[in-house]
């Protein structure tokens, strides 16, 4: 990959936008560039960003997963429950498995009954959220051991643990997509599912895999949130699915499948996080923040598509 390819890449375009946003905010508010603020933003972003890795894979196969927020909520509750019952490590392990299992169920139903992912995961969103409410009867689960809190609140060499987890997940996600055969198959089946199948690739297995990964990562984010808030609450993560999809789409991943990367999604998540933080620092009302965020999503996607067209013209 030479320098010209880098300049042309979607990720570079978004990265420039991200830098511009940071530059504006650091001029507009003195507090933006403080270490404390940056570390807070990164911590907030990490939950959405971790789920975005899974969502990127799902969207690369031309699918969608609306259940990530609800799966996060359910696993959040289960983690609190299991840790109280079985102890720290077994509790976290079981809760993670539950997240993966919920994603696996999404994948199996989509593949075996040949149903649209939108519908299946919409159903799962309600089921998972409902189960979380059933289990807790609507009340948060508390009484989690103190040491669990260090998962979200601790620091390693000065970096918050959630940010470290996020970086690890991104490195793994990047390697998985760019270096393994499954990554190749994910891009291929999103690019042309039929041709990929006709080449002897078990496309169904690939789809089940991406939903399982997404379930697992949603569960991971759910556990981290339980640690951060020292409780399991059935309403945690409500609406997160839209932030996650927003991050992936701002990151340049094509909803039609086959094109995109986790690197883009990371920058997408950062843009959303920084924007959110910046608007708070600027004292913009919470209501207007939503409006601005919506505008940014549309403008980012429109800009990406215009860039693509511009470069395509240049090549032909």
């Amino acid at each position, binding site marked *: 990959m030479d320098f010209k390819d880098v300049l042309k890449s979607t990720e570079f375009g978004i990265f420039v936008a991200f830098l511009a946003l940071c530059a504006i905010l650091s001029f507009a508010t003195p507090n933006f560039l403080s270490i404390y603020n940056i570390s807070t933003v990164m911590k907030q972003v990490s939950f959405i960003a971790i789920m975005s890795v899974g969502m990127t894979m799902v969207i690369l196969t031309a699918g969608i997963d609306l259940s990530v927020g609800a799966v996060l909520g359910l696993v959040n509750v289960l983690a609190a429950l299991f840790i109280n019952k079985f102890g720290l490590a077994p509790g976290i392990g079981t809760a993670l498995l539950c997240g993966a299992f919920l994603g696996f169920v999404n994948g199996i139903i989509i593949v075996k009954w040949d149903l649209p992912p939108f519908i299946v995961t919409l159903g799962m969103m309600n089921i998972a959220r409902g189960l979380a409410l059933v289990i807790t009867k609507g009340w948060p689960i508390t009484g989690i051991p103190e040491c669990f809190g260090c998962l979200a609140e601790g620091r390693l060499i000065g970096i918050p643990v959630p940010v470290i987890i996020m970086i690890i997940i991104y490195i793994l996600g990047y390697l998985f997509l760019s*270096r393994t055969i499954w990554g*190749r198959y994910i891009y*291929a089946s999103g690019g*042309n599912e039929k041709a*990929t199948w006709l*080449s002897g690739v078990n496309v169904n297995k690939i789809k089940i895999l991406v939903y399982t990964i997404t379930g697992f990562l949603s569960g991971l984010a759910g556990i981290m949130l339980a640690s951060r808030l020292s409780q399991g609450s059935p309403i945690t993560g409500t609406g997160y699915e839209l932030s996650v999809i927003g991050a992936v789409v701002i990151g340049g991943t094509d909803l039609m499948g086959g094109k995109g990367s986790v690197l883009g999604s990371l920058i997408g998540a950062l843009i959303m996080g920084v924007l959110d933080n910046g608007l708070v620092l600027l004292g913009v009302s919470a209501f207007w923040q939503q409006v601005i965020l919506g505008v940014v999503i549309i403008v980012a996607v429109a800009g990406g598509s215009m860039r693509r067209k511009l470069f395509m013209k240049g090549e032909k």
Partner: protein
Amino acid sequence: MKKKTADKYILEMENVSKTFPGVKALNNIYFNLKKGEVHSLVGENGAGKSTLLKILAGAYKKDAGTIKLDGTKVEMTEPKQALDMGISVIYQEFNLIPNLSIAENIFMGRAPRKNSAFIDFPKLYKESELFLKKIGMKKSAKTLVSELSVAEQQMVEIAKSLSFSAKIIVMDEPTSALTESEKETLFKIIRELKEKKVSIIFISHIIEEVLEISDRITVLRDGNYVDTVNAKDTNPRKIVQMMVGRELKDFYPKKEAKRGKIVLEVKNLTKKSKYENINFQLHEGEVLGFAGLVGAGRAEVMRGIFGIEAPDSGEIYIKGNKVKVNSLFETIKMKMGFVPEDRRAEGLILSRSVKDNINITKLPHINSHGLVKQKDEQRIANEYCKRLKIRTPDSKQIVQNLSGGNQQKIVIAKWLAINPKILILDDPTRGIDVGAKNEIYSLINNLAKEKIGIILISSELPEIINISDRILVMREGKITGEFLRKDATQEKIMRLAALRN
């Protein structure tokens, strides 16, 4: 041509030509139509029938020539214009909306109104019934189109044409989906339309029915006008001869591969209303051609063998081992490759690179614990680009940006990467230019030399005759004949492919 008696023709097309990038699709075509006449248009696939038809329907613009309707020169620029002038085309794929009634379909977009905003349903149904009665259709106009058989839907299309007060109705392969008795009904309607002085242009692959229903027949070949004859003065053999009588160009390479052991045996393969009792053997180093018209079931048989669409019954053996039917993972494991007819939809991942496309079948063999061996990946891509002369700046190039011929080579390359024993090629030279065609022929020869058994489906007879060692002919889902290359002629094959006897 009796050009001087122009006034008795309702339609005259003279010197009509049309060129697509790289292809002369029509070259000085003559076609005329009398009032109340059935005039058929016949020719092989690619002869130019549908191009001519689309020009008449206003869907394509002609490059040169004149079209006269009732003696006055006209320029057709859009479909609506043709319709207004009384030309109605019934395509193979009907333009009907299944969840609306017959009446709503007939008067789509021009239903009678009440108070200018609401559809006047009583009037709509009454007028529709009138047209249905004209063609002897007994269904109520309120029936939903989705509840109709193919033949009945076709009748709705005809009623729709009449409602536009069409003077000329073009029917593009109207019998291809009909049963024998439905066909008789259609012919009865056509004869009645004739009596009402409606002119019909009839297109069909089945020569017998062309002779049965037509007054005159015009033959096209390779975009050229061959002749127009009276149906009663000719016979099927003469028509077939006119259809294929082209001179053979010398661009088919000679083949030297020797035939070896049996690699593939198919026994009694059957799929209801697609194909039945297909039996054949394929040898190492053999090129086995499958000839036939579009819709004869050749592609379906191959898709059944490869495991894409399950046959109802029958057995498949690869090198003597019985293969699980309907599992393409299995057949690929047993070293069978399949180059589909529609390479863009089924053969390629257009948004990915040349390298990714070639290696997609190879990934299970070039990884350690799931990590792709990127050096092998690059080496394989380079190797096949060189061997198949794939013209691309480099292997990172996105496949979408390459020409049809190079794209087809990539599809073939991806199968060569698994060292296939059997390679099925479904119309591999479709839509690619002459030079690339020639390269693909040479490639087929070389692969046969490497003892690969090759099945070649093609709609171009010269291609099949010159490339295959042995040719099986299919018609209407059955194998109707077999020739060795030395015995095969275009006439013999065409007779078995098109004639019912």
